[in-house]
């Protein structure tokens, strides 16, 4: 194993390492730009912003609210998700895999689309109007994160040895007691791990809150954006970026500690076989799970489609037809179809860049597990999207190189956000490549480049495909960074949706719904292509 990796090191000198260094620079530049503005607001060193922000009770209220909503969303997702995961892991029934796919769809949708879906469901003209309250946001977080719990806890449940539970029952334990004392302890590490991932996503949630919060509720991530783009308080936003950085890194550290502890625990012995449900109790459990997934994941998407087709009090295609033109009375001054083109072009460029960089970088990381390359490539997870967006804007907007007008700046931000997804997909596959393959190629006289193209790459292609799918979906839905960088004449679809929804009134809302449907379609196509490779599972694996 070790000698193989050494030989690989000699085989590709430099390229991978250079890529890692480039990633480090590209991520360090925006972070540094934000940090510098925090402590040097107007070209003079000053702690004024730090004391102003950290000395304000409102900041601490915001921090507690941010954590509280993340905890609430996390608990809601676990309460709904664990039983569903249990049903899906334990019983075999018609439509099980379709149900699992449906529960997974929201996770690959752009957060802005989730926000839009819930705005149509829980906004004015929806079922109930709870826009601008935390209820709507927690519901949207539940929908988005359900897949995290179902996948993570489900995997742990199916790995559980069914004999243990049977033994407990034989020894006289009630079903509930058996579940509590045998099943629960076994899957608890997975539940905790899933909970932390959900917590992290909700901690940095942005698109959902911007769309659903209506300015009435805020979190640290949203406050960074409000301060930077509404109040023109760049240094204050910078201080909050640091607060956010600390919170995210602390969460990741807790996650690393817990999952490391868990992996020392029990190993998978037997795969639990799902069986058909028997009896009223089990059938009603299945029925409840089906209804729950339909309501949590299906209803919002259905509402989205319905609203995109609603024109006044009737159904029609006007919202879709209007996508080709600039509509008066909406806040968008280019036609929405142009935004679709912008998004597809930008996401294609960004995803390609993320794959090239991710694969080359992952080769370096694979030969030195736990090394610096590993951590550098995953750094973007630790930096929130708004920090990347604001930081890039500040960093590239200084003479002599003013890149703010460049069309490349949005893809750079998107690629940065997508990079960890590619690495997480590709790295495990690379690590599990048998040494003998490479050695055999070498003995047959294939050069290092040939070995990469003809042996290594074909062997890890499923993982690369999964990473590519995830990266593309992440890029096309990217909002937190793009919203800072996309210029008014070149919006991406998520930015266009936010603009359209920022003004009350029918025309813009309908178009936003139609645009959201287009993104759902694009993401669904990508998901269908990569789901069999269980891309989402790879995307969820935060532990390295």
């Amino acid at each position, binding site marked *: 194993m070790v000698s193989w990796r050494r030989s690989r090191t000699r085989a590709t000198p430099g390229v991978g390492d250079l890529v890692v260094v480039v990633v480090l620079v590209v991520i360090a530049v925006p972070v540094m730009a934000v940090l510098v503005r925090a402590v040097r607001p107007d070209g003079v060193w000053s702690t004024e912003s730090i004391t102003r922000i950290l000395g304000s009770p409102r900041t601490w209220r915001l921090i507690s609210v941010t954590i509280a909503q993340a905890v609430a969303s996390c608990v809601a997702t676990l309460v709904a998700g664990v039983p569903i995961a249990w049903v899906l892991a334990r019983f075999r029934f018609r439509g099980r895999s379709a149900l699992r796919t449906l529960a997974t769809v929201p996770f690959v949708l752009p957060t802005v689309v989730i926000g839009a879906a819930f705005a149509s469901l829980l906004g*004015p003209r929806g079922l109930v109007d709870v826009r601008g309250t935390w209820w709507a946001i927690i519901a949207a977080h539940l929908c988005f994160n359900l897949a995290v719990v179902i996948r993570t806890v489900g995997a742990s449940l199916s790995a559980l040895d069914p004999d243990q539970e049977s033994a407990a029952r034989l020894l006289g334990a009630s079903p509930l007691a058996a579940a509590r004392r045998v099943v629960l302890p076994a899957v608890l590490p997975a539940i905790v791990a899933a909970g932390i991932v959900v917590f992290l996503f909700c901690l940095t949630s942005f698109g959902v809150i911007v769309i659903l919060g209506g300015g009435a509720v805020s979190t640290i991530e949203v406050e960074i954006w409000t301060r930077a783009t*509404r*109040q*023109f308080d760049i240094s204050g936003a910078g201080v909050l970026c640091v607060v956010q950085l600390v919170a995210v890194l602390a969460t990741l550290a807790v996650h690393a500690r817990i999952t490391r502890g868990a992996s020392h625990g029990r190993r998978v012995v037997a795969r639990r076989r799902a069986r058909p449900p028997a009896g009223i109790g089990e059938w009603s459990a299945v029925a409840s799970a089906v209804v729950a997934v339909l309501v949590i994941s299906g209803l919002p998407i259905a509402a989205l489609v319905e609203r995109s087709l609603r024109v006044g009090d009737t159904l029609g295609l006007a919202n879709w037809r209007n996508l080709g033109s*600039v509509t008066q009375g909406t806040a968008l*001054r280019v036609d929405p179809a142009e935004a679709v083109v912008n998004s597809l072009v930008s996401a294609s460029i960004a995803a390609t860049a993320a794959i090239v960089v991710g694969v080359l970088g992952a080769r370096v990381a694979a030969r030195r597990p736990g090394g610096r390359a590993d951590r550098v490539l995953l750094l973007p997870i630790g930096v929130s999207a708004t920090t990347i967006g604001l930081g890039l804007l500040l960093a590239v907007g200084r003479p002599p190189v003013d890149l703010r007008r460049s069309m490349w700046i949005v893809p750079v931000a998107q690629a940065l956000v997508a990079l960890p997804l590619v690495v997480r997909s590709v790295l495990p596959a690379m690590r599990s490549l048998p040494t003998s393959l490479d050695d055999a190629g070498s003995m047959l006289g294939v050069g290092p480049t040939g070995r990469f193209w003809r042996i290594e790459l074909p062997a890890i292609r499923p993982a690369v495909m999964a990473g590519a799918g995830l990266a593309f979906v992440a890029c096309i839905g990217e909002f937190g960074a793009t919203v800072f960088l996309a210029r008014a004449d070149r919006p991406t679809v998520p930015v266009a949706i936010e603009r359209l929804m920022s003004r009350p009134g029918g025309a813009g809302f309908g178009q936003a719904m139609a645009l959201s449907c287009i993104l759902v379609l694009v993401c669904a196509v990508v998901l269908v292509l990569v789901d069999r490779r269980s891309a989402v599972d790879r995307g969820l694996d935060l532990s390295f």
Partner: protein
Amino acid sequence: MTSPRTVRVAVSILVAAAAVAVGCTSDDSGSSDASSGGSSAGDVVVLVTYDSFALPEDAAAIFEERTGAQIQVVASGDSGTMLTKALLSAGAPEGDVIFGIDNTLATRAISEDLLEPFSPAAIDTVPEKYLLEGDAGDRLVPIDTGDVCLNLDQRWFTGQGLALPTTLEQLTDPAYQDLTVLGSPVTSSPGLAFLIGTVARYGEDGWQDYWQRLEDNGVRVRPSWDDAYYSDYTVSGGDRPIVLSYASSPPVELVFAEGAFSEPPSTVMLDSCVAQVEYAGVLAGAEHPELAQELVEFMLSPEWQAALPLSNYVFPVVDVTLPPEFDKWAQRAEDPLTVDPATIEAGRDRWIEQWREQME
């Protein structure tokens, strides 16, 4: 494992999606010339402004005829958002001219080399009281004025048998509990003007106490004027009969009603009015600096000025004839609340911070 066929299917679906999208846009290139016309440099001048700005079409046509250049509008949010976005792209602007910076934010616009100095020839026709001093005066040209005032839904109050409130102080009276909706001073320009108005009325030491009493009496704050006026105001079907809007809103209601009623449903609470002036300027680093200057100059022409009341519901800064609805129904405060620019500059960011601390 992934077959090459799956890859091909994936790629072709995405390419097809892109092609359809491109098809949609090119289909419609006729009507969206204004937005895609950037390629033919020189015959476009880009106006950066706020969302609710409406281009006075006839006046714009005259400009386009005279100069051969199309006016393309780039809107980015409320006026505060627009200005911040412009400041973040100072030096690499998204347009040539910026319009809609008001007197509450004027000094912020001077902070980042956002604007080129420019003084139009017609500046002499603008009354002294609208002009700014120093750096700001060299760069910002007054274009229109309109007081920010609370509007009252007369029919609602009559229906409830409740007297119309006439003073700011009455808004804190329990009789008027849960009736008021305002725009946020953080994101909306009338909101900021109103906040500054309360500072003018109650002083540095008293305004926070006033807002506390407002909050205790159930005031609602919305992120933008649009939200407050179109979603919450009773005249638009909402549940609040007192809304922060403009002195010009009542005559505008009449114009929009097109004869549905003979007098406006709303009236203005004169005691609450805060003076607001909106300025335009030439953006530094503009791609079309000469056209930019021509456009700012044209904004002071009688054609543009006379079109402002019915397109943007504001008053011209030069002496032109007002539309009859404005002449008859627009009420203007004799002595609106004002704070001088230097005091605003020194206090604004702190007041916003304190307001957020207290109200959010």
